């Protein structure tokens, strides 16, 4: 029987497995911001509303209607412009914090 060198075999296995990498999110904030975990987003949203009770979200935040790429742009713009919110120690963009708040308010 032909023997496959151990190292080559593992590389081949890696090639097969590479496509099914699990999401990188491993903690609440990461999950929330990737919108992979609504529960995490709700928790962040609740904490944001506690920290910033005067932020009147006034219905659906305009960002919620935007495509994900546009949201990402807004998030970058927020950071660049200093529009950040401190939520449980995390420094978040105002847009993403408000989106989490919307997820929380939507139940």
């Amino acid at each position, binding site marked *: 029987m032909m023997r496959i060198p151990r190292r080559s075999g*593992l590389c081949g296995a*890696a090639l097969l497995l590479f496509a099914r*990498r*699990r999401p990188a999110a*491993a903690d609440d904030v990461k999950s929330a*911001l990737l919108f992979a975990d609504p529960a995490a987003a709700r928790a962040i949203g609740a904490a944001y509303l506690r920290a910033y009770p005067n932020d009147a979200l006034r219905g659906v935040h305009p960002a919620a209607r935007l495509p994900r790429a546009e949201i990402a742009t807004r*998030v*970058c713009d927020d950071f660049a412009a200093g529009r*950040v919110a401190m939520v449980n120690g995390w420094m978040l963009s105002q847009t993403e914090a408000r989106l989490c708040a919307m997820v929380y308010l939507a139940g």
Partner: protein
Amino acid sequence: MFVDARSIPEGTVIESDLCIIGAGAAGIALAREFFSAGLRVSLLESGGLEFEEDTQELYDGKSIGRPFTTLTTSRAREFGGTTNFWGGWSLPLDPIDFEPREGLPYRGWPIRRTDLDPWYAQAHEVVQIGPYEYRPEKWGIRLDEIPAPFNGPNLVCRMLQCSPPTRFAAVYGSALKQASAVTVFLHANALRLIDDEAGRTVSELAVATLGGNRFSIRSKVFVLAAGGIETARLLLASGKPEGPGLGNGNGLVGRFFMVHLEYGASTVAVADPYTDFRFCTNELLNSSGLYYAPFGLKFVTFVAVAEDRMRALKLPNCKYRWTYTYEPEMSGINALRRLLSRSSNDMTDDVLEVARHIGGAGEFAFRKAMGWPLFPVRAINVHMTSEPLPNQESRIMLGDDRDALGMRRVVVDWRLTAEDKRAALAMQRLLGTEVGRTGLGRLRLEMTEDDTTWPDDLFGDQHHMGTTRMDADPGKGVVNADCRVHGLSNLYVASSSVYPTAGAANPTLTIVALALRLADHIKKKQA
């Protein structure tokens, strides 16, 4: 020549041209410059050739401010001084560290970085590091592979060089022993510098040993090279009895005591676990042997605030360094590495661990074959070295307690201000903004956002600075640009105590550069 000062008869007066007090990095670097200068040099060392507990105990004192508990452990009272346990990290102060800065009081040296550049280059030879070159790209770091935001414009990759580290006693001891011009007095403790009637010249140094004998040294020139705390202590203990101390007419000796601030500041959750952090040769990578070494020597990279940004934000200097928290599959990757390198202690366990994390282990093997970043990072744990702001209330004083030689012990009143804390928070806000803006991840602050509370792991490191600060104006500094004590014609300081600002650079290289510059000044003056 080495002389054990305990054998010198009581009351002896030794004549000398240059008397250097302290045989550490500064004192030894200075003395080496006078091997063939035609001067009689006395180099005094409180300790011997080995650690001695009773000598080290002479360092002890009291802390009355922010806890400062390392008086006897952060420095070494023996031949070679603190280079006996120095870590070896070397880099020059940045040009901005020498500048006066708007919005940051008590800043600005009377010299510029360019004044020190030639001496830094020479100091590199003394501490046995590579060329005077600190651009990361010159050391093999590919700037185009550094991930945003660490590739500018606000945060930049920087580097320091690693001395072997040079143990000055071992490396330079035998040359000092053979040098006919230099006499090294071991176990010789400087008690008091005595000035003349007019108070313009130091005429004599009173010396004592723990063996009980006392003698004195007369010299044309005296240099204090006893470190950032003992230098101030000796000046305060010197001069006329009941006087304020030598060079202390304006009450500045011992003030502005600074140490670099070390603390864990934040965690950054990383969006892409395979972000390319290979530019960052932190301690963890170094312990795995992954140095970049185009010169055959070692260096360490770190992240800093770009000078323009430092100016705009009115920030003091700092180093961002970090360790990594890896994704859970790292245990499978480690097991795979052990199997591949045939270093597994338990092959069954390691095979099972690989199986449990087969995705991560497989990806590791694939990435290794492709030459890509190998390890899945979940978060980076940011550790700061930040520059303290000069504060005249932070100080070294003399207490009422006396040591075994009858000398008054030091009292350390180490203080930090609200501005220090605000600067620390601003550094994290900048990092948080930048990692968010570039999509690298999100920052979690590990500090409270008030003006006074610091992380529990805050400590002031062994870099004692500022207690005889350099300024052209005697009303603002203890020494002038030549490191000469204001008002005294023949007393100089070779120590980090002359730093008016601390920067974020480890201080030894600058201490040596300043000592070499001082040697040149003294030689020219004596010629």
